[in-house]
């Protein structure tokens, strides 16, 4: 049992524990924090896999960006002390059953399948390689997805702004003029 | 351009023309011009056809034209006519022409009304000229769909219900038909080679008998629903009762004929062996139709219902004759289709005109109308007499040909069926005279009726056109029957080749 192994199991344990806590905690804000822990642990696993850039992105975008966004919206839509409404027990039981069955099936399948790990030399995922690949339009280049994703981000941004803007539908205007 | 294609092009142009009109006056004028052209074209076609035949052209279909339009499934725009299609086209021309004049005062959404009506006519014309099963089916659908709008928008009474019922039942028929047509397509060339939808091509081969057994009921019932085959006729009374005048005319006069024509041209012609085997089931059903429709009509009070049930009876006779599968009966079936088309169109036109005056269709609320509207009264009596099969009118010729054709079968089953069908002539007389008696004869029951006006010029034009058709066929049936006779040669030859036990 090397340190690496211990690290891995720690991360694994924290991912599973906090995942469970995320979906079961009745305080929404806490859920968000647990989710943050999950994401961070995931980043840890990426570090362990030697994908440092990805891990950094995971930390900045997910942990830094999304979680903050979520927390803001939680604060906007509910009180901190408010406890989340949970589904009826029946729904919980059935969901748990379906999910457990699914998990068991998947895991069984995974163990049945003989993966053949490759022995070919690894490409180092350092910033230089990643950056090259991202803007390369050759084979194994990702210029097109990169552009597409940027457009998607732009669209999402515009969309989010439009959606979140206070709408001025005629009814509201009518109401305002009446007032 | 091929003369047959003109039959589709002219209505389409007319529709395009109506799009640019502004009000009732303009749109009806455009429709009238278009359909008059169509009528003249039908007459020219009859003339060309007859001269061509006299010149010794023995091809099964004349004026053929073929263009591939969907290569993946080998679907062609293939057109061509024989005597039967020519007769049906002439019928359609007359009925549509009369229908336009019968709806001369369609004030409500007139432009849209005429567009739908002519679209319907396009479908019917296209159906009759098509030789390609798929194109035929396409035109069939074009004819059926506007019906929904025409009844649903311009109808009366429970029009939404009727429109829905009619369309759904006919669509059900189409679904069965689709199965049949696709089945025929996939077994069209059993020896291997390019599959085809072309009727003439398919007829050259023999569809395997096992498949015929399976496909024939689909095809026949599919067309039979449109031809008011018992027990799939119930769309007819409701649909006709709710439809506006011109639509009833076109529907009963022409559209129901697609059923008989299709059953003959597709079901029997392409699958004679299965037809021969299964005919007995449908003969029973059609015999029931014939008598049952007539009995049903006796009890009705609404003029349109009476006529709808009488159509069930008469169209039943068409299918009955088609199933008898010999030359005389086929001839009779075609004449009966034309005769019934003209008669029933005339009836519906008259009912519409009477309804427009009295604002009721219930016969027990009317009486003595002969005195105030003699023209319509006389024409109604003529239509009635034609309908009950009086010599001198087309109905007689048709019925007699059918009965004699049916009687050519020597076995007891066919004999009994024939006699059952023959007995309908008495029942028909009962309900026709009952209507004529209560509606036209006797004292005037309502003093409002005293001020009714007799027919206008356009109503006269509409009805007289149809009366001329009826009497012409009734007086001189020879040309028509000979025209049909010749065209039956291929199918008779095909029927002669099948050897089945008991033949």
């Amino acid at each position, binding site marked *: 049992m090397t340190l*690496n*192994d211990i690290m891995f199991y720690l991360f*694994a344990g924290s*991912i*599973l524990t906090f*995942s*469970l806590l*995320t*979906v079961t905690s009745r305080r*929404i804000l806490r859920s968000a924090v647990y989710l943050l822990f*999950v*994401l961070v642990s*995931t980043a840890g*696993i*990426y570090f362990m*896999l*030697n*994908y440092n850039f*990805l891990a950094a*992105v995971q930390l900045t*975008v*997910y942990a830094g*960006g*999304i979680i903050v966004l*979520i927390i803001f*919206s939680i604060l906007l*839509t509910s009180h901190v002390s408010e406890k*989340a*409404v949970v*589904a009826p027990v029946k*729904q919980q039981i059935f*969901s*748990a059953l*379906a*999910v457990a069955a699914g*998990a068991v099936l998947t*895991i069984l399948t*995974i163990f049945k399948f003989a*993966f*053949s*790990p*490759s022995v*070919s*030399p*690894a*490409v180092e995922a350092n910033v230089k390689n*990643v950056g090259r*690949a*991202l803007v390369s339009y050759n084979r*194994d280049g*990702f210029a097109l997805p990169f552009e597409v994703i940027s457009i*998607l*981000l732009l669209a*999402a*941004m515009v*969309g*989010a*702004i439009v*959606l*979140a803007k206070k709408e001025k539908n005629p009814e509201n205007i009518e109401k305002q003029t009446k007032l | 351009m091929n003369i047959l294609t003109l039959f589709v092009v002219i209505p389409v142009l007319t529709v395009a023309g109506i799009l640019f009109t502004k009000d009732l006056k303009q749109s009806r004028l455009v429709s009238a011009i278009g359909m008059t052209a169509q009528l003249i074209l039908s007459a020219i076609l009859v003339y060309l056809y007859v001269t061509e035949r006299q010149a010794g052209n023995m091809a099964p279909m004349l004026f053929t034209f073929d263009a591939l339009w969907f290569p993946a499934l080998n679907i062609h725009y293939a057109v061509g006519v024989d005597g039967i299609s020519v007769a049906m086209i002439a019928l359609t021309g007359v009925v549509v022409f009369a229908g336009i004049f019968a709806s001369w005062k369609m004030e409500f959404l007139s432009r849209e009304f005429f567009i739908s009506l002519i679209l319907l006519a396009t479908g019917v014309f296209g159906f009759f000229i098509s030789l390609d099963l798929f194109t035929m089916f396409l035109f069939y659908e074009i004819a059926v769909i506007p019906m929904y709008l025409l009844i649903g928008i311009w109808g009366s009474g429970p029009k939404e219900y009727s429109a829905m019922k009619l369309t759904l039942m006919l669509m059900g028929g189409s679904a069965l038909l689709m199965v049949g047509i696709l089945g025929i397509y996939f077994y069209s060339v059993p020896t291997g080679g390019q599959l085809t939808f072309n009727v003439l091509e398919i007829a050259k081969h023999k569809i395997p008998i096992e498949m015929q057994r399976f496909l024939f009921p689909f095809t026949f019932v599919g067309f039979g629903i449109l031809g008011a085959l018992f027990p799939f006729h119930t769309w007819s009374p409701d649909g006709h009762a709710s439809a506006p005048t011109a639509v009833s005319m076109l529907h009963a006069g022409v559209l129901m004929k697609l059923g008989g024509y299709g059953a003959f041209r597709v079901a029997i012609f392409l699958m004679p062996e299965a037809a021969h085997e299964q005919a007995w089931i449908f003969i029973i059903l059609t015999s029931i139709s014939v008598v049952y429709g007539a009995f049903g009509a006796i009890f009705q009070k609404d003029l349109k219902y009476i006529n709808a049930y009488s159509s069930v009876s008469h169209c039943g006779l068409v299918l009955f004759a088609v199933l008898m599968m010999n030359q005389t009966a086929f001839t009779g079936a075609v004449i009966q289709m034309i005769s019934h088309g003209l008669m029933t169109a005339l009836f519906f036109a008259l009912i519409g005109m009477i309804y427009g005056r009295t604002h009721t269709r219930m016969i027990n609320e009317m009486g003595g109308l002969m005195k105030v509207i003699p023209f319509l009264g006389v024409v109604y009596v003529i239509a009635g007499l034609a309908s009950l099969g009086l010599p001198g009118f087309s109905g007689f010729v048709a019925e007699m040909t059918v009965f004699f054709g049916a009687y050519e079968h020597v076995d007891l089953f066919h004999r009994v069926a024939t006699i059952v069908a023959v007995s309908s002539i008495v029942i028909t007389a009962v309900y026709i005279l009952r209507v004529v008696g209560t509606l036209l004869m006797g004292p005037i029951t309502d003093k409002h009726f005293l001020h009714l006006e007799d027919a206008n010029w356009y109503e006269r034009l509409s009805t007289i056109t149809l009366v001329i058709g009826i009497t012409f066929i009734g007086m001189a049936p020879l040309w028509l029957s000979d025209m049909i006779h010749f065209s039956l040669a291929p199918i008779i030859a095909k029927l002669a080749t099948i050897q089945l036990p008991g033949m």
Partner: protein
Amino acid sequence: MIDNIPLNAFLVISTLMFFIGIYGFLTRRNLITMLMSIELILNSVNINFVVFNKFLYPNQLHGHFFSLIVIAVAASEAAVAIAIIINIYRNFKSIDVENLDQMKF
């Protein structure tokens, strides 16, 4: 660094995380927590991508980039979703998913 940790261990973790996410999606009534469940699911998928990349095709970086793209998509998704949630909250004064059943029948 990870040589003695089998591939299956990673896959088991991601599977469990995935189903936990689904469980959350099925049971939480609050839209935001449902969104968080989705993030869990996406995350588990990311792990799979990365792990497969690392273990099976180390000579390429496809899985790595897929993860990157998924993260980007998750970010935009979160942005739009939160905009929608806030909008819903404005209109319904609630973000309980049970109340949002307008789109039935």
